[in-house]
């Protein structure tokens, strides 16, 4: 009896708490513009984009909590949850939905294509065209725009040829479950046509498979490793670099941030920059610009800085590779130390 009383009062308190917090969902105390930001899953590259986005918004004058409300959500890799989050934003009629990740873009497009709102800005998407959400920079739904960040694959292949002209077999570990990764590998296969390079591919679907997968490539005989912008690889870059350094097979990558971490040479962008460019678009929309007038941006081609070269001379020395003075002159960043053990 007493236990029932305690439980009943506990329930009453619980319900009261729920109603009170729930009412904050129904009406905001002050009418601030709302940005609904949703990530599909948690991974380090995504964190960097998000940080870049928020930093960019602050630089444009929009500070979360002060003159704008940022509703941050994460679907943790679950499709129905991701759908529900976007439906929540739609029902709340948020001012802008920022969707990160290709699945989120597909879902957001699907639930807004017939009504044209809320406005969508996407980021961390390899290609909006590949999933048929848009056909070109301007041939797109009027309420949708964003930043694509396809990795500079042809440039990286060129970098390999210039830095290691004698290399033939290039090992590529990647997660076949990521649309972006499959696309990058396909573009790599295209880029090596006409050269005498051969791609040796290894599938790694989880972070704990990266070490073994990379070692299998070493065992199959590769001259160098190509690190594409893959979420699984990025999350386990530590073990990937370790295999590279232990076996003395250099890593070529597309993210300058990886060079201090053990990659020998890189051409590309830091993930943050995609977030920064997306943040500029969001700020413009909040100030009244229509997404119709903001063409889709491709990082490195029409938005953001041009791709940057970076080298790690310490790693190059360890691998026995000579990087020419001319190459070093063109570099935006040169690391002189091996990564800490």
């Amino acid at each position, binding site marked *: 009896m007493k236990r029932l009383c305690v439980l009943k009062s506990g329930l009453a308190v619980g319900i009261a708490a729920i109603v009170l917090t729930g009412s904050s969902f129904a009406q905001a105390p002050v009418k601030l513009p709302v940005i609904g930001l949703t990530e599909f899953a948690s991974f380090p590259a995504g964190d960097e984009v998000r940080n870049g986005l928020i930093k960019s918004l602050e630089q444009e004058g929009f500070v979360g909590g002060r003159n704008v409300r940022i509703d941050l959500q994460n679907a943790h890799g679950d499709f*129905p949850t991701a*759908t529900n989050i976007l439906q929540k934003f739609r029902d709340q009629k948020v001012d802008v939905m920022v969707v990160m990740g290709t699945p989120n873009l597909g*879902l957001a497009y699907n639930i807004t294509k*017939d009504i044209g709102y809320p406005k969508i800005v996407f980021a961390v998407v390899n290609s909006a065209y590949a999933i048929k959400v848009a056909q070109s920079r301007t041939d797109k739904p009027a309420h949708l725009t964003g930043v694509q960040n396809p990795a500079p694959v042809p440039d990286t292949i060129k970098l390999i040829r210039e830095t290691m002209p004698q290399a033939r077999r290039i090992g590529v570990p990647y997660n076949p*479950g990521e649309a972006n990764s499959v696309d990058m590998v396909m573009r790599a296969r295209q880029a090596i046509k006409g050269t005498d390079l051969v791609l040796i591919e290894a599938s790694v679907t989880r972070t704990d498979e990266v070490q073994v997968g990379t070692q299998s490539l070493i065992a199959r005989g590769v001259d160098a490793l190509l690190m594409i912008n893959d979420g699984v690889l990025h999350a386990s870059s530590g073990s990937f670099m370790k295999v590279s350094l232990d076996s003395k097979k250099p890593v070529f990558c597309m993210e300058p941030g990886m060079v201090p971490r053990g990659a020998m040479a890189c051409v590309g962008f830091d993930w943050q920059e995609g977030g920064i460019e997306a943040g500029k678009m969001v700020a413009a929309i909040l100030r009244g610009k229509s997404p119709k007038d903001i063409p889709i941006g491709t990082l490195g081609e029409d938005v953001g800085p041009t791709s940057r070269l970076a080298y790690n001379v310490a790693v190059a020395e360890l691998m026995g590779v000579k990087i020419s003075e001319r190459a070093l002159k063109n570099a935006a960043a040169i690391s002189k130390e091996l990564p800490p053990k």
Partner: protein
Amino acid sequence: MYLSFWLGAVVMGLGFTGLVLSAFLTFRVLNFPDLTVDGSYPLGGAVTALLIVQGMSPWLTLPVVFLAGGLAGAATGVMATRLGINGLLAGILVAIGMYSVNLHVMGGVSNLPIFGNPTVMTAAGTLAANTDLAAAMVFGALTVVVILLAYWFLCTEVGLAMRAVGDNEQMARAQGISTGAMKMVGLIIANGLAALAGALQVQYMGFADVNLGLGAILAGIAALIIGEALMPVRGLLWAIVAVAVGSIVYRLVVAFALYLGLPPNDIKLGTVAIVLLALTLPRIRGIGKTAR
């Protein structure tokens, strides 16, 4: 207010019923722990997307999807009954292998969009102005049909034999029932249902994704147990209806956690807390036996 948000959860719960029913058939009726659904669920999605893009009617894809799922179930069945592999392991092996199969079905891409193509909901678009309401009606109707078919099947000779095998395998064998055949039948139907659930989810989302199945069985079992805890124990039909109820409640619980505005990293914990609350409430009131 917030109609599409709550309706969306209900629609996805209805669509997911096939997978929860699959867990019911294997874990409860057949007493066979089957993890194949992590592979057959996205397979259903992949097959329906592939066929819709080729121009097939979205309704006609459903029986094909069921067959495809059935094949996956048959693979597990053959491993478990003929090759002597432990049932749990057989399911895992097939689920892992299905990842590659699904990628091939989708033509090598991990994301296959079907925007602009007709789905089972476009026909119903004329029934209700709100697309989510239309989807709820279509999925609701499909769920009712599936529940009735499942109930009918489990009362047939084959269905009864399957239940006997799940109840007491040795006794069933002594009665002359081929336990291997019954397990095959059960696995085929269960995975066909899981594939159907995947197909419905994909048609609702507008694209197929090879990663759809990650963690599907966990969600299925959670929904199954929630349904059992919430519904009174009154025979087979109620047990099957409990499956649908559990599926819908599970998605509503996640929606509720989102509605509460929980910090994004705490959504899963919040979901668990709400589920625990839902499960312990009946026990406090003195009712609540699981349908065992």
